[in-house]
């Protein structure tokens, strides 16, 4: 059962990864509260393993990955259908 408070609904995010800018530190993967990301096997041009999205639907648009990335290589936008909901920020 999903508990709702007023018209607040869980938010969903679209994750954007700039693979070439990533240095594979793993911060985003480690600290995502929903285990949405994992480091891929693939190499980028610099030889690092960028993250990839494994559970896209689990993303709650908390933007922690965006805030923690030391390379400014990942960010999240609010999924369109949710945009009418109330604005809130839930960074740690």
């Amino acid at each position, binding site marked *: 059962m999903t508990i709702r408070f007023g018209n607040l609904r869980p938010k969903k995010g*679209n994750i*954007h990864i*700039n693979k070439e*800018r990533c*240095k*594979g*530190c*793993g*911060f985003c993967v*480690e*600290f995502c509260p929903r285990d949405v990301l994992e480091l891929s096997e693939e190499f980028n041009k610099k030889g*690092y393993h960028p993250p990839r999205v494994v559970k896209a639907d689990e993303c709650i648009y908390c933007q*922690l990955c*965006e*805030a*923690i*990335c*030391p*390379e*400014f*290589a*990942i*960010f999240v*936008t609010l999924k369109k259908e949710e945009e009418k909901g109330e604005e809130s920020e839930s*960074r*740690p």
Partner: protein
Amino acid sequence: MSREELAEEKNPMEDFLRMDRIPHIWCPGCGIGTVVTSFADALKKSELDLDKVAVVSGIGCTGRVAGYVKFDSFHTTHGRAIPFATGLKLANPELKVVVFSGDGDIVGIGGNHLIHAARRNMDIVVICVNNFNYAMTGGQVAATSPMGANLSTAPYGNFEYPFNLPYLVETCGATYVARWTSLHIRRVTKSIQEALAKRGFSFIEVITPCVTLYARRNRLGDGLNLLKYYYDQSEIQHGADTRTVGIDYQGKLIVGKFVDKEKPTFLDGMNTHLQKVLGEKYVPYGVKP
């Protein structure tokens, strides 16, 4: 691709960075980049006029920040970020002046400037990234290196007493003092926001992993290990007596907002004094009409 989709592809940080200089020089797993995002976030939330914000750094890995952020910024010589910022603030009191630099730069070679800016309650914000060493030049002992830590100039371990930064700046007169680790993202942002909103000398110490030198020499793992370790070692004690917040090697880290008080700034003091002495003929300086 529609216009909207294109706009979505841009990382919001790109508005705050000189993108022609990115990727930056920082090592994979270095924490400095995260602190830059917290800073940008604080500026966004502060709703300050960004044309009236100036960022000043000295030399070091952290010192590169002035070169990466898209504000009026200046990359000064080693240790001289605070005197440069002081001049900037006094010449143009409308500016919000932020010093963003490393522990070696601010507290080592620039230590004298730090204590005097705090003593005079100069109206600037200082963000000091403390990675416990002179990172850029190869991991030498800094004034913040904990006793027992291994550094390139202390191959048998450091035996010098380190500075306790919050205590140092509070004693000298700072009106806002906080310490966090770089993983306390929202708290770093909030502290910077509070400091930006405040008049007077504000000092925010951010304990940040240096993976390539400090972590490697001390076999502390990678950036992720160190980031987590610092966070786990942290204990939040707002208002803690700063005499008690010294840092031992791999020991407990007392973090929080330690000082937040009001006191006339350097310019307040100058105006009050000269008005008293010179009376009507003195025109107060740097006061909004």
